[in-house]
């Protein structure tokens, strides 16, 4: 396969008359077309036999300097890393196993690599993420119930979100793993390990800022109400109204139009002590009532459509102070 690729490249580059940019000048020799066709046919044949060609790791290229890449990675994120720790953050357990196997296969009795994997750093990073994200959410959404905060937290630390973050900061080529491209969980573990390494190198505040800037910002333009499925909204509303002494919530039909047509619309409001909590539309009264209850809950939680956007520049000291109060910290981090 590699031979074929080299051959095709040679055809493209050695022949001076093929100009990729200037089509008018092109005076392509007669042997080029059949050669390319032949190469293409052989490539296809190989693909049918062996499956699609595997992506070659960037580190297999001649122009590759791992140290420079690691250095540039730190600069890109505007962070100061301890070099060895950052390098360790990119080493997956599978890579060490693979390298040891390789050494054994050539007859080394006790293979040693002088490498340690990123699991310890990843564990530390995961702890930092949990602490910070929960406190950040508690500060940003003070009226949101704990179950809801948990749901948003679960979304933020889910593999899909962390995978996206990890890929977007350019870990793909730097990860040392037995697979290329790396498996999804390796990406996630690497991101956590990077945060752990940052904590060890530059301290807690920088690690928190990293989490705020790269993980919390994934809530940008996300409707937090959609992340939390409420089982029985009416029951929850009744409970909250009882706790806050707002009175019994009752639904009232405010308006309707187009009765007995396919375009019927009902407009229902929820009132407690003659004060409107929220409104909702629906094609029948039941749906309109449910929507109105959801709207009332959004208003009570202060997460309605016109809520203030999240403050992603919130000083991390504010969050760290919250974490220092033992009771609050325990309440926020436990049972997640």
């Amino acid at each position, binding site marked *: 396969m590699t031979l074929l690729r080299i051959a095709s490249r040679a055809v493209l*580059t050695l022949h001076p008359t093929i100009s*990729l*940019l200037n089509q008018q000048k092109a005076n392509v020799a007669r042997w080029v077309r059949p050669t390319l066709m032949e190469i293409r046919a052989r490539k296809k044949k190989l693909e049918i036999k062996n499956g699609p060609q595997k992506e070659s790791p*960037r580190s297999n290229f*001649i*122009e*590759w*300097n791992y140290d*420079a*890449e690691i*250095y*540039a990675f730190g*600069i*890109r*994120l*505007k962070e100061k890393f301890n070099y060895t720790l950052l390098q360790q953050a990119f080493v997956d357990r599978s890579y060490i196993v693979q390298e040891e196997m390789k050494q054994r296969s050539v007859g080394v009795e006790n293979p040693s690599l002088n490498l340690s994997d990123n699991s310890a750093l990843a564990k530390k990073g995961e702890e930092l993420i949990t602490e910070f994200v929960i406190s950040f959410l508690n500060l940003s959404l003070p009226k949101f119930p704990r179950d809801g905060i948990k749901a948003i937290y679960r979304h933020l630390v889910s593999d899909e979100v962390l995978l*996206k*973050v990890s890929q*977007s*900061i*350019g870990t*793909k080529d730097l990860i040392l793993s037995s697979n290329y491209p790396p498996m999804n969980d390796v990406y996630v573990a690497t991101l956590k390990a990077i945060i752990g390494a940052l904590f060890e190198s530059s301290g807690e505040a920088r690690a928190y800022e990293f989490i*705020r*800037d*790269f993980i*919390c*910002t*994934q809530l*940008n*333009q996300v*409707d937090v109400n959609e992340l939390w499925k409420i089982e029985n909204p009416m029951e929850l509303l009744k409970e909250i109204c009882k706790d806050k002494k707002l009175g019994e919530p009752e639904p009232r039909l*405010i*308006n309707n*139009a187009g009765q007995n047509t396919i375009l019927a619309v009902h*407009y229902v409001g929820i009132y407690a002590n003659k004060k409107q909590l929220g409104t909702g*539309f629906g094609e029948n009264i039941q749906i309109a009532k449910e929507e109105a209850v959801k709207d009332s809950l959004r208003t009570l939680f202060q997460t309605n*459509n*016109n809520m203030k956007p999240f403050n*992603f520049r919130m000083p991390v000291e504010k969050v760290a102070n919250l974490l220092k109060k033992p009771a609050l910290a325990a309440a926020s981090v436990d049972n997640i």
Partner: protein
Amino acid sequence: MNHSQFLISGFLRPPFYNGVGRQINQLQRLTIKFCKSHGGSKGMRDFIENHLVNYAKENQSVVVYVKPRRHRSPVIVAEYLNGDRRWMSAQNRNHEEILKWLSLLSLQAGDTEPIRYRKNWHTDCPSIQGPWTPFTHKNPAFNNIAFPDKELGKQLNMPETATEKLLRLVQEQKNTKNE
């Protein structure tokens, strides 16, 4: 109509909400290939001698590889964080031109076609107040009225009738006489 004459339109979409938290330079790697003897690489050689160290110092987040190869035209390959790889020929370009191309490449977010922005901003939540409905500014008092209603249904801009005008004139005459 020749569609290729027009820019494709779209919305501004920074990768990964870049800049919401902190700004990351999207160019991660730059490979410069050139020949040490050919004339086509003259500009590239000048660039490497005079500007490359400076460029690398200013853009430390970019890993720059310089790859000499015999009797082949100079090439710039830019690799971005989203996995895009942009190949560019630098044949017969002078060092100033190359510097300009490089500064363009380091500002881009990938191998993107230029697009015409439909708006200079974009949001996933276009309405803060919610959509307008026929009930939005409806007076709640109308709920208890049975239509058709005489009071609400009367014409608002009724012009003065001839009888009314006559009566008004007579009244005005009477007023002036009394004075």
